[in-house]
């Protein structure tokens, strides 16, 4: 709870700093503040509490994920220094928006009441609409914003309808109450329908097939930093929330009562297979790196959805996977930000010869791509490993084999980028060594590898 308040306060401070002409200080202070919040959040870890008659329910799950979100936000804020150099007047707004977005995210994973959940998701989404369209004069950005807005609000409409049906079935928005009554024998069909509607809404947010179409376009159109945010923070938040929704409302067992469980599992399996395959295959022919990563994000969503098959056991796995994925993503995007600083597009050609001009960044990008591809010693590999392990344990060997085939395909496009960096001649001068970008890149990749070497650190948090 304190975390949430602190974050909101921090957001307001950012706005104040602008008024007080402390523009220079905004980013460092925000970072420090966020680190403070992280500490605060850490203190809350392990306490099972609920605030405001259970509007907010703090649990291990919520705190663990919140800290991941905070870390990601720190990186994103750090990156925004260079990103917004050209229009300093807006910097406070953008930082503030990011912080508020974080508040929404935290609210989403720690909701104890569907109202809170709805508010959280809306805070996040609206912030994202703004960020997506934030490059006012760039038609691409406008289009991205518009698309995201239209589909997003459509999706939130669906979610709202779902909430409504659940309310109708349960007569309450409170998670714990729903949790109890979910098991009662005679439930109106609205409940599962409502759940499904909410799930679909969330699937849209995580960009799972067939609700994924917005992702590539929006990712491509939005400013690079926003794309980074979407593909790391937003995606992680969404999947975490989806997981919590299903876990906390005792959905699975209630489905079991009305023997719909199998149906649900079939749906999940189909969607996750579809997401993986579509994501990976579509990524093969992309030339725009952001777009490519969008599709790779879709496929990763497919992987993460596998956890929904073993909700009871796989919270830790999900946390690990999201952490691995997001950290790799941050590292990759920080390099992209550097390379495409003053490019009008993010095509692969911009990366030619990066291995010669900036070996360090090239190495970081390579590492992050390898991690996403699931090559050992990077945490991405262990994430996949644990995920597969879980899933096979639950008896979905076929699903795992599809996943394996998909990770083979994925290597195809990840390596396109690596080859471009190492075996092509540099086609441009790359000057300047912006400290924050380098720092972010290195730190995030180091974290990623550290996770790889000591997976238990994260994996056992939620035990």
């Amino acid at each position, binding site marked *: 709870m304190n975390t949430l308040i602190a974050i909101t306060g921090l957001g307001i401070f950012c706005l104040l700093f602008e008024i007080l002409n402390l523009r220079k200080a905004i980013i460092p202070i925000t970072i420090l503040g966020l680190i403070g919040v992280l500490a605060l959040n850490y203190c809350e870890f392990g306490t099972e509490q609920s605030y405001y008659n259970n509007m907010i329910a703090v649990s291990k799950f919520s705190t663990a994920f919140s800290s991941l979100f905070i870390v990601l936000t720190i990186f994103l804020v750090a990156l925004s220094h260079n990103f917004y150099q050209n229009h300093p007047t807006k910097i406070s707004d953008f930082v503030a928006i990011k912080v508020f977005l974080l508040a929404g995210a935290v609210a989403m994973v720690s909701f104890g009441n569907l109202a809170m959940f709805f508010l959280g998701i809306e805070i996040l989404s609206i912030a994202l609409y703004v960020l997506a369209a934030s490059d006012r004069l760039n038609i691409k950005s406008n289009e991205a914003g518009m698309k995201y807005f239209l589909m997003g609000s459509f999706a939130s409409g669906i979610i709202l309808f779902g909430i409504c049906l659940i309310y109708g079935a349960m007569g309450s928005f409170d998670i714990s109450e729903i949790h109890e009554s979910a098991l009662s024998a005679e439930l109106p069909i609205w409940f599962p329908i409502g759940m499904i509607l909410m799930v679909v809404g969330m699937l849209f947010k995580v960009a799972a097939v067939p609700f994924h179409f917005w992702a590539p376009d929006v990712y491509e159109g939005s400013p690079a930093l926003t794309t980074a945010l979407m593909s790391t923070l937003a995606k992680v938040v969404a999947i975490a929330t989806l997981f919590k929704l299903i876990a906390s409302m005792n959905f699975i067992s209630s489905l079991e009562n009305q023997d719909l469980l199998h149906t649900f599992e079939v749906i999940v399996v189909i969607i996750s297979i579809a997401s993986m395959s579509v994501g990976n295959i579509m990524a093969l022919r992309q030339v725009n790196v952001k777009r490519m990563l969008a599709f790779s994000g879709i496929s990763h969503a497919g992987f993460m959805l596998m956890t929904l098959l073993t909700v009871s056991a796989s919270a830790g796995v999900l946390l690990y996977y999201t952490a691995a994925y997001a950290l790799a993503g941050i590292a990759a995007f920080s390099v992209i930000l550097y390379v495409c600083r003053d490019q009008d597009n993010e095509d692969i050609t911009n990366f030619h010869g990066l291995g010669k001009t900036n070996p360090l960044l090239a190495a970081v990008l390579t590492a992050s791509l390898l991690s996403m591809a699931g090559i050992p010693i990077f945490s991405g590999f262990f994430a996949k*490993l644990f995920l597969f392990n879980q899933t096979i344990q639950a008896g979905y060997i076929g699903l795992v084999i599809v996943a394996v085939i998909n990770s083979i395909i994925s290597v195809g496009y990840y390596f396109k980028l690596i080859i471009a960096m190492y075996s092509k001649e540099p086609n441009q001068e790359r000057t300047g060594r912006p400290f924050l970008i380098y720092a972010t890149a290195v730190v995030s990749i180091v974290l990623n590898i550290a996770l790889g070497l000591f997976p238990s650190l994260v994996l056992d948090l939620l035990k």
Partner: protein
Amino acid sequence: MNVSTILIILLIGAFATYFSGDKLASKVALLFSLAALGCSIVLLNNYNAGENISVINSWINQPKISFALNGDGLGLAMVLLTAALTPIIIFSSFGNEYKNAKGFYALILFMAFAMVGTFLAADGLLYYIFWELALIPIYFIALIWGNGDAEERRKAVVKFFIYTLAGSLFMLTAFIYLYQKAGSFLIEDLYKVNLSACEQFWIFLAFFLAYAIKIPIIPFHTWQANVYQKAPTVGTMLLSGIMLKMGLYSVLRWQLPIAPLAAKEYMTIFIALGIAGVIYGSIVALRQKDLKKLLAYSSLAHVGLIAAGSYTLTLDGLRGSVMQMIAHGFVVVGLFFAAEVIFRRYETREIGEMGGIRTQSPKFTSMFLILVLASVALPSTFNFVGEFTVLYSLSQINIWFAILGGTTIILGAYYMLRMFQHVMLGETNSKTFADVTLNEGVSFAVIIAVLLFFGFYPKPITDLITPSLETILQVINKN
């Protein structure tokens, strides 16, 4: 002192090399590889003295993965092969100038590190990790320092990477499945687990895919020739000299003992595949225009025989194939180095553009000839010992296997001598060919010495590997 020391030395070596800068890199790399060699020899002594040099620490508790290295005779033999070849390979590269040498040599050492790990790992997942790690450096070595048209090279290398990765991912799936059964990745637990025939079949197949691509066994060999041709010779040596052996070794260490029923059931099929590889490889090698490609196909033929030997599931078969692995490791490195030596002088790998070298450089000719003869398994070379043992074991299964596999001594002689004739003999080529330098000579001499010594006295190696092979056989025949 235990086996992990070698790994540490090599890893540190890799970093030290990278930070020692382009000037010193090669020297430093050589130094560390020699250190690793020394270390492995010391370990060998300790092992023979009956000291326990294995390591086992828990690493990840859920799922239970442990950092377990098992220094037994078989593992040590392969480690020795790696540790002995790495310095030779590094030393043999002294004649060339590489841009960004520090990265190059660091990668070599890192690869050696990963391969040693693969040979030692006693935990399924650890093994898999090393197995995959070994792939990264060779990918970059071939991609960045390779030769030939860049676009084709990219295609070849990426194909190689994805292809091998594809195979090994199925192996990973098999491992996870086994983990569900055994509750641990430790090799002894995996040995213990009881699987139904059907399960064994699928697991065997998953492993086979990984190994058949890596070794390679036909028809999974299509990456080989191109990559061998495109990669820098050092990379080719690493690939053919050591990396192939990873696959063959894994067959012995993992595939056969874990899925013995399937192994027994389908033995003949896989032996047949191996022998088909022998014949096919030899015949394709006949008409190759590119020297490195020819050698690639010849090694395809040889590993086919080795694989056939290991699938016989007899002590002779396993022992023969291990000896053949080591022998082939040395001889193939030597041959590729010879190709490199020619390339340094003639700037070509086209056999058609060579010839008449013998008149100009007798020393090189004799060394090359000895290697050629070793590769066609002339008695008194180590290769003969291995090949004889393997063929004998095959003849015990079915005399026809021995006869068909034996065609290698005819076809092998045919294409190798044909190659030798067109490369070395004939009228003096207009281009001048300086005889081998001291460095080159040393590398050759070492390899030849090893081959001849063990050709007459293979006992040390036999004694080293036999016990562990026997234990493996016990596991295979437990039910």
